């Protein structure tokens, strides 16, 4: 249905052409005796045939080119989604490992900040390819991803982690991190479905 909605103009044009053809065929059948075969060929007839055959061959090639191109771009966007998801999961796993260790060092705090910065870089790339591929239709997904990512960053680099008084990750902080991670994961799944069906 989405394909039909997106190509509604083409659907209308093709419908009108088909109706026209049906009408023309009806007229031809009705006036059959008036149609005669002429054994003499003119140069315009030959050109007409060449032109018609060329069009018949070129249209499928042209359509296939655009389908392939769209499929390649979709593949690229899905690849970026995968990279984002992988980095998000790595960040989550690293955070959980630090929590399980029962202590957090200054190096761990800096490391978490680096993970968040790298996630920002992944976000910028993903947002830009999504926008390029899906235009305005991607806006609401990009906005949702951004909002959830800001919450995630806040949960991982706030004073409950970065204060010098914090020597281990509190279970409540972990609970927040799990919630923000899940929100981001849900959004990524939605984006994946959206791009796959686009």
């Amino acid at each position, binding site marked *: 249905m989405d394909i039909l909605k997106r190509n509604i103009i083409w659907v209308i044009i093709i419908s009108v052409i088909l109706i026209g053809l049906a009408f023309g065929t009806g007229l031809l059948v009705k006036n059959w005796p008036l149609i005669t075969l002429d054994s003499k060929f003119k140069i315009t007839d030959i050109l007409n045939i060449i032109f018609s055959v060329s069009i018949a061959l070129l249209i499928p090639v042209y359509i296939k080119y655009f389908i392939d191109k769209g499929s390649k771009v979709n593949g690229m966007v899905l690849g970026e989604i995968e990279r984002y998801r992988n980095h998000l999961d790595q960040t989550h796993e690293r955070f959980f490992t630090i929590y399980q260790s029962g202590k957090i060092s200054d190096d761990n705090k800096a490391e978490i900040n*680096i993970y*968040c910065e790298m996630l920002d*870089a992944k976000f*910028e790339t993903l947002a830009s390819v999504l926008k390029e591929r899906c235009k305005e239709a991607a806006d609401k997904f990009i906005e949702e991803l951004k909002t959830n*990512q800001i919450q995630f960053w*806040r949960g991982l680099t*706030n004073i409950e982690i970065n*204060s010098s008084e914090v020597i281990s990750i509190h279970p409540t902080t972990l609970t927040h991190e799990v919630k923000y991670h899940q929100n981001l994961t849900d959004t990524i799944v939605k984006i994946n479905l959206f791009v796959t069906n686009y």
Partner: protein
Amino acid sequence: MDYGNKKTVKMEIKDTIVIAKDFTDDPGAREEKDGLNSGEIFYKELLLPKYLKAVEENYRILIDLDGVFGYPSSFVSGSFGALSIKYGSEQVLKHLRFKSDRRPIRKDKIIFEINNPERKDK
């Protein structure tokens, strides 16, 4: 989500803070006691004095966020969040503009913090 940058009030930009150049390219945590380059030091030594001057003379400050390897939320909270708690988000956003060509999401993060400042005693 409305991050506030859309509220446009015509006001001239007369000052700039390039955090990487004017403060550090390695922002720290929230408070001075948490270590080097804290948000609190940035707030006290750079942001607040410039902000007060901008309010007094009715102009805007452009804050360049590039050239830094990531801003911990605690740094943002100790600086821009503190400014928002003291003077209100609307007033702060009226006098500050943000720029990040490399990571546009940084602007949104800071404006989010200004609109929803994290309080220490939460």
